[in-house]
């Protein structure tokens, strides 16, 4: 009894150690020292809960019975891990982006937050998971019994039961303490993860130690071991291709679908990058775990008496060889395997039961009692989780008690796998196929569940336990094709492969058909897009905190849909209306309604309602969902905007072409107009000259007429010459070939000279000047400047229509420059003509008496630009008014240098 008591003490000490480890990890995490907890190594080790007591002990027994087939259980997960780029990466990303808490949550969330689907997946998981928990309890009790037996005590059923109860209670306490400290699944269970990491190391060490002892301690080395393997009675390779392929598929699928695996792989994943390491490190772990399975089986069969349970070789071989310490280590390895699996599986199942069954029902009950939900939901959820944990462990224990812990239980492992694998079609379809619908998923799950129960689960209780032998042989109600192990008359298959094949085939078929023939609701479609396109709008960075929806979240969402400027404008406006500064108003009901209306303009009313409703209502759709949906909507908008932009672009191009064409036409018209204007201007004086010279030549005119006609001819010749001069001058100015001769003089002198040259000898135009202002010294080409002044003065003389024409010349300053204004008292120039007067030949048609060509102002403008000054019409003055801005002397100097 001493060894057994020591074992009890060691086991309790080990359990206490685990509690301590979990507690310390929790405390460090709470203090923000969780970095080392978030290492890829811990992540990899936490995946080891895949290796349960069933595999720790059972693999050796499996190998002893079926040879190499045991390895399939590890090959599937290895393929999934090394192929992480296919599925795992996507799952982890979706889990993060959608804040998934369990595999039931994943399915429910994907198919439009369907409560029914969540319940269905939970139900499958619990039915398939409970026997598995029972299996762990059995292995722990069995291992205790082995030690008791070594002491010569043969356990009775009551001993088994008592042990199982204590183990169950211990596990429940541990899981409740460390599993329900936090509510949010994203606040990970550091304590549990750390504890199972430690257990992972212990069980690996234990198995490797036993294996090493067997190979080197008993066989005497690797070559001797290989010889013994070759000589063994075990059939290493019994070719059953169905089982080989089927089991690899089954283990791979179960690895993805098992709630506990989903928990550690997706929910507890702290960093997507950890997959990089886990992709090879976990397969390595699996390899080490299975490396010594065959040697232990071979040696166990050789050493131990016939009839020994090969499932316990890992314990019995060291005990048989007198290696008590090694046996205890092995026992701890088995205990670790069992407890870590049960803890995580219970936690995962409890989360599912609580979230997908308990809480929805509770909320419904609440809703019927009172309109608004009050109180701390958090407390309710935690309580429901704790109750769920206790309930699941109780179920496990009861299952263990009822099944009697016999071989029937041992067979349940793979059957349990097949059960959870029914989730696979909905899961894979959901994350890769946008067309997958909730109806399809539900049909598939139901079908799979029914076939699994009929072909595998119910028969597993043993003949006549649930299904009678007659039904097994001839089907229910004589329906031969419904025989549990020969569905549709297909016989000769291994029962397991038969069950896997039919359940998966029909499950997938129903899922596909259901999806193809049903139409998903809006939320479901949005979620579908989210899941399938998860890499388009999520980053690998840790998700942001689960802040309650505030104005900021709404703003971000609105920006995604409406564009930043518009959304910000709306928010700012609302904030101002509320008397706040900035972009973030209080989220009032009115504002939400208004925002919804605005959004519906972009994405349609239904979607906008769903989005805002979900965001505000705090329901299970997360903010990220909505933002990602918004992203998608924005992408569609962007796409259509691009199309629109493209057609706008074409329109712009067409308009540009049209403009260019018009410009060319206008230029050619201008050129034509210019040429015909020149022609007109030249031919008109020539007509007079020719006509009158002919008259004079013909004779018959009196002396007075002769003098008068000769005078006309002379005037017209002068006009013609002046016109030609102007044209040449303008051509030179426009081509920039003008030479400037800089001089310095006073403005007064220049004006005097200009007035004299303007030919005011007839005395019609009166000039008004303010000589006091005219003392400015100008450095410029004074001749050119005078030309401008002369032109302006003579224009006033020609065109001023006042009875007593008067021209005021005023010197002043504008914008720091000297200006000279020429203002007459006539009626001025009509507004519509003011822009034209500086154009060539713009002689305004109603000024019929104009003698000169309309080149004067055009030349003046050119001159002033050359000089570095300007000339402009002053519209506000009473008569025609021109402002000459004198050149800046410095500017003129620079011009002279160049």
């Amino acid at each position, binding site marked *: 009894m001493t060894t057994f008591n020591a074992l009890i003490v060691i086991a309790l000490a080990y359990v206490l150690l685990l509690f301590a480890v979990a507690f310390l990890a929790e405390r460090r995490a709470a203090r923000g020292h969780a970095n080392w907890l978030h290492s890829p190594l811990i992540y990899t080790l936490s995946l080891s809960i895949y290796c349960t007591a069933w595999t720790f002990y059972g693999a050796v027994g499996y190998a002893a019975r079926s040879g190499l087939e045991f390895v399939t259980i590890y090959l599937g997960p290895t393929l999934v*891990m*090394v192929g992480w780029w296919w599925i795992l990466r996507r799952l982890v990303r979706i889990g993060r982006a959608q804040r998934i808490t369990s595999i039931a949550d994943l399915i429910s969330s994907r198919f439009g937050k369907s409560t029914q689907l969540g319940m269905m997946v939970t139900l499958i998981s619990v039915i398939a998971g409970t026997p598995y928990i029972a299996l762990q309890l059995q292995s722990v009790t069995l291992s205790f019994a082995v030690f008791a037996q070594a002491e010569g005590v043969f356990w009775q059923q009551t001993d088994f039961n008592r042990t199982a109860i204590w183990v169950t209670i211990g596990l429940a306490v541990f899981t409740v303490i460390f599993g329900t400290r936090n509510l949010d699944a994203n606040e990970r269970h550091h304590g549990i993860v750390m504890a199972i990491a430690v257990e992972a190391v212990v069980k690996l060490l234990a198995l490797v130690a036993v294996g090493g002892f067997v190979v080197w301690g008993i066989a005497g080395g690797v070559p001797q071991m290989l010889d013994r393997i*070759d000589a063994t009675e075990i059939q290493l390779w*019994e070719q059953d291709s169905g089982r*080989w392929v089927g089991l690899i598929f089954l283990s791979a699928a179960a690895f993805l679908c098992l709630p506990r695996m989903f928990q550690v792989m997706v929910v507890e994943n702290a960093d997507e990058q950890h997959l990089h390491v886990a*992709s*090879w490190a976990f397969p390595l772990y699996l390899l080490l775990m299975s490396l010594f399975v065959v040697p232990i089986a071979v040696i166990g069969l050789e050493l131990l008496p016939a009839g020994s349970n090969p499932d316990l070789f890992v314990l019995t071989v060291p005990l048989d060889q007198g290696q008590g310490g090694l046996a205890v280590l092995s026992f701890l390895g088995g205990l670790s395997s069992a407890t870590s699996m049960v803890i995580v599986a219970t936690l995962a199942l409890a989360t599912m039961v609580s979230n997908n069954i308990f809480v929805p029902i509770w909320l419904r009950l609440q809703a019927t009692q009172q309109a608004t939900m009050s109180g701390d939901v958090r407390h309710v959820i935690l309580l429901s989780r704790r109750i769920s944990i206790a309930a699941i462990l109780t179920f496990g224990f009861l299952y263990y008690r009822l099944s009697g812990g016999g071989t029937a239980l041992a067979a349940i492992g793979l059957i349990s796998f097949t059960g959870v694998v029914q989730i696979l079609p909905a899961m894979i379809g959901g994350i890769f196929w946008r067309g997958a619908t909730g109806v399809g998923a539900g049909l598939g799950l139901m079908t799979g569940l029914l076939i699994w129960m009929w072909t595998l689960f119910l028969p597993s209780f043993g003949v006549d336990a649930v299904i009678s032998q007659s039904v097994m042989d001839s089907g229910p109600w004589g329906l031969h094709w419904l025989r549990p192990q020969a569905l549709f008359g297909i016989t000769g298959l291994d029962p397991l492969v038969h069950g896997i094949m039919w359940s998966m085939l029909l499950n997938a078929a129903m899922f596909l058909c259901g999806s193809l023939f049903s139409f998903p609701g809006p939320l479901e479609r949005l979620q579908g897009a989210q899941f399938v396109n998860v890499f388009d709008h999520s*980053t690998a960075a840790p998700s942001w905190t689960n802040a309650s929806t505030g104005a900021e979240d709404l703003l971000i969402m609105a920006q995604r849909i409406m564009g930043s400027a518009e959304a*910000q404008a709306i928010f700012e406006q609302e904030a101002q209306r509320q008397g706040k500064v900035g972009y973030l108003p209080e989220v009032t009901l009115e504002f939400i309604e208004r925002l919804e209306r605005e959004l519906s303009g972009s994405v349609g009313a239904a979607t906008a309602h769903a989005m805002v409703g979900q965001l505000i209502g705090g329901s299970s759709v997360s903010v990220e969902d909505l933002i990602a949906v918004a992203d998608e909507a924005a992408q*569609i908008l962007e796409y259509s905007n691009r199309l629109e932009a493209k057609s706008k672009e074409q329109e712009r191009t067409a308009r540009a072409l049209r403009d260019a064409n018009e410009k060319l036409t206008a230029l050619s018209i201008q050129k034509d107009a210019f040429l015909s204007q020149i022609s007109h201007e030249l031919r008109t004086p020539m007509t007079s000259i020719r006509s009158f010279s002919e008259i004079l030549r013909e004779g018959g005119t009196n002396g007075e007429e002769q003098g008068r006609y000769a005078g006309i001819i002379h005037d017209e010749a002068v006009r013609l010459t002046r016109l030609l001069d102007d044209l040449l001058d303008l051509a030179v100015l426009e081509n920039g070939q003008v030479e400037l001769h800089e001089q310095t003089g006073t403005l007064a002198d220049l004006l005097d000279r200009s007035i004299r040259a303007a030919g005011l000898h007839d005395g019609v135009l009166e000039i008004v000047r303010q000589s006091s202002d005219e003392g400015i010294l100008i450095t410029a080409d004074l001749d050119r400047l005078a030309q401008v002044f002369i032109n302006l003065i003579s224009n006033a003389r020609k065109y001023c229509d006042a009875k007593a024409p008067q021209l005021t010349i005023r010197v002043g300053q504008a914008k720091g420059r000297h200006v000279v204004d020429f203002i007459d008292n006539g009626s001025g120039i009509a507004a519509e003509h003011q822009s034209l007067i500086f154009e060539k030949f713009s002689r305004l048609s109603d000024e019929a008496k104009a003698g000169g060509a309309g080149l004067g102002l055009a030349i003046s403008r050119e001159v002033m630009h050359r000089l570095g000054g300007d000339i402009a019409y002053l519209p506000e003055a009473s008569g025609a008014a021109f402002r000459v801005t004198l050149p800046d002397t410095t500017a003129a100097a620079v011009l002279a240098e160049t």
Partner: protein
Amino acid sequence: MSRTPKTSVFLQRASYRQRRLRDAARLVPCLGLILWMLPLAWPVASASQEDAVRSAGLMYIFGVWLLLILLSAGLSRWMRVIPHDPPPETRKQP
């Protein structure tokens, strides 16, 4: 729904390498599956005791396993050494 690609057609050399590594990472499980399906062609143990698969078969299974682990480790190491694509556009702050 067609969506125009966000990235340019021609990638930087490093990005190109990164993508091919991902392709390789996707191929590893396919390789594993093929290699682990080969035992299906092994002779049946019960047929003839001489031909029966023995420790060599065991070594083969574990050899393939080790190969996959090494390949996967190598790929994940290379993926980390070679710079990634520029990160996707970060969330605009209001």
